[in-house]
């Protein structure tokens, strides 16, 4: 049977998109996964892949046309299958018309709402979303729904302003090990939390103390809309001051690497050394599909598929970590915070932050540690830094050197701490 080529929702906020061009001609053969056409949203241009294999028939979308999400653009049909685009379109419309009233209802079929090809009409919102919008004084029409056919659900309604403000405050932190002297302060990456440092902390000698911090909007930390590196660094600095830390060795991973680079230049903290692990902020590219998929994933299967990109060994992170992430999402509002952070720091699939100016000004011992096979941030971005900053490139390692090569990375941190004292 012919399978419909649909304008997909590639972005949570997206209701329509401009069709840019076909990458495959009428009647040509396509394979599932092959780039099929290009669209442009408010934010980005992107290629969309074929979801089936066969012959591309009945191209209906014209370049420049603005179409709603779900619009049928063409069909992919079997090699010897008869095809009439008008009949096909008619069949689709009939199905859409008949589906809601179809009786008798098939057994065990809990599918209540048949897909419709249009997103026009009154705003679709659940009763709960309507009540929350009413209580919070939010216009429903201004919201983008994340449910089927753009239905607005409770998590699409922004929290009341007072709640955002009251949640501002110092960050959650934990002493992974305590010791005399200036500690190592560890700052995790986007979407993670302080627990990710435990394996590395276990590799440090007992003489080195380690304090791990949950970034704003992550783990058990509140989110007060810190959407710049300076704001993140300031909140971390305030947390360190509260903890009585005036001098520290800073270790940061990914986004946390960019945060500690900013923090190294903060006035009220004496930074003794700096270790940036797969840091963000050194170049424009970042794996946009990963960010998008990571934020959209709602099941063990979908989230696990994306998180496997973090490491070279697909099982390195383990199912428990995936489940923990899902559980946190269910229990807290962190997904909303993560989405806002991603939009601020990585808009349109690019890194909108640059830490090179801060690194150029460094006079303390510093290392950049990357995995050559990093699939999130290309490792080559770490090249071209000042000659005084050591670059450690681990072969066979991905975006998580502090997990994948925790032994050697632990020794590098130890070296830095010695050099910085």
């Amino acid at each position, binding site marked *: 049977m012919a399978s419909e080529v649909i304008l997909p929702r590639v972005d949570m906020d997206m209701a329509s998109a401009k069709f840019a061009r076909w990458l495959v001609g009428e009647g040509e053969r396509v394979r599932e996964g092959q780039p099929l056409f290009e669209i442009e949203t408010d934010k980005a241009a992107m290629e969309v892949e074929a979801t089936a294999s066969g012959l591309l028939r009945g191209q209906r979308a014209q370049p420049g046309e603005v179409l709603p999400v779900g619009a049928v653009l063409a069909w992919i049909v079997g090699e010897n299958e008869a095809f009439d685009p008008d009949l096909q379109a008619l069949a689709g419309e009939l199905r859409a018309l008949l589906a809601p009233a179809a009786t008798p209802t098939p*057994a065990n079929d*809990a599918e*209540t709402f048949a897909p419709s090809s249009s997103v026009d009409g009154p705003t679709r919102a659940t009763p709960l979303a309507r*009540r929350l919008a009413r209580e919070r004084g939010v216009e429903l029409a201004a919201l983008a729904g994340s449910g089927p056919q753009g239905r607005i659900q409770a998590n699409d309604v922004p929290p009341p302003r007072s709640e955002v403000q009251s949640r501002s405050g110092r960050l959650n932190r934990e002493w992974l090990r305590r010791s005399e002297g200036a500690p190592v302060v560890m700052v995790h990456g986007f979407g993670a939390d302080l627990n990710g440092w435990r394996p590395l902390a276990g590799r440090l000698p007992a003489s080195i103390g380690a304090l791990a911090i949950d970034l704003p909007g992550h783990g058990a930390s509140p989110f007060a809309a810190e959407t710049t590196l300076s704001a993140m660094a300031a909140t971390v600095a305030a947390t360190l001051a509260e903890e009585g830390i005036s001098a520290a060795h800073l270790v940061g991973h990914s986004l946390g690497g960019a945060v500690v680079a900013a923090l190294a230049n903060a006035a009220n903290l004496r930074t003794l050394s700096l270790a940036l692990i797969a840091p963000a902020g050194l170049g424009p590219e970042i794996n946009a599909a990963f960010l998008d998929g990571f934020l959209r994933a709602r*099941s063990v299967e979908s989230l696990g598929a994306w998180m496997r990109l973090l490491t070279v060994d697909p099982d390195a992170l383990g199912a428990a970590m995936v489940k923990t992430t899902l559980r946190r999402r269910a229990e807290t509002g962190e997904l909303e915070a993560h989405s806002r952070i991603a939009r601020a720091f990585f808009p349109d699939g690019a890194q909108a932050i640059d830490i090179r100016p801060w690194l150029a000004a460094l006079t303390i011992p510093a290392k950049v540690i990357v995995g050559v096979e990093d699939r999130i941030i290309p490792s080559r971005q770490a090249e071209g830094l000042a000659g005084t900053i050591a670059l450690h490139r681990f072969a066979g390692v991905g975006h998580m050197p502090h997990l994948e090569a925790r032994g050697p990375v632990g020794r590098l941190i130890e070296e830095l701490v010695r050099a910085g004292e």
Partner: protein
Amino acid sequence: MANDTRELTYAEAIREALAIALAADERVFLMGEDIGVYGGAFQVTGDLVDRFGEERVMDTPISELGAAGVAVGAALTGLRPVFEFQFSDFSLLAMEQIVNQAAKLRYMLGGAVNVPVVFRMPTGSGLGGAAQHSQSIEAWFAHVPGLKVVEPSTPYDVKGMLLSAIADPDPVIVFEHKLLYKTKGPVPEGDYRVALDRAALRREGRDLTIVAFGIMALRALEAAETLAQEGVDAEVIDLRCLRPLDREAIVASVKKTTRLLTVYEGVKTLGLGAEISALVAESEAFDYLDAPILRLGGAEAPIPYSPALEKAATPQVEDIVAAARRLAHGRA
């Protein structure tokens, strides 16, 4: 009074309840086809005829209407008959006595009489009984004012609810899913009662409410374990009582979880799940709903004889998991 607790099967728990009632109250007697020497089609009455005699464990002819009429008449004279239908399907022959007589006589005679009869109904599919021996017709009876309708899912509940039903002054229908007869669970010794109007919260959860009863309550619990491994935290309400419905328990749970899935073996259209959905939609829980209410019911077809089709015609654990997953992830 509840004393020591042992593991009993659902069938043993029923037999124990019957024995307690027979021993405690000489007005109580049992009627049904082959419940005496044969011990019942599902071996529920077992040896009760040896212990209490043929006067009180009475085999009836194969004439449901006539025998049910005897039971209703006996109840009107002050006796407390407990009537076993071999299959709930056969109760359709006795609808006149149950619906037009037992359910209505107290009302029509201005409260001058009571009809304290209990009808026990082995119900549901799963044993290859085919179309005329496998139906789930709870909704037919739950539609009738004047009847109380229950469907316990555990040995503990079936004993306590059967004892409550026998003591109740009005007609009570007790549905017993055939697949439950061999399931085991803790059952206290002695007489204890379980209310005929209260649902049981079997599992607390945050993400969605699954309302089920009978065998489906067990399947919902099994599904909830699978869902938990995916990070979906399902609350499971075992209705137990189909008439009256425990409105408060359902509404409170939906207000908490914001999503509702109903699961029942009876035909989906106009079934118990439809009533529960409407009840929630009319209640104060409406403004808490963050997804459409979903019903998972039986096929719009007679129960097939083929074991594979029989399974396909009724909700299974994986169907519950799939529906709950879509609800919890905002894809319903």
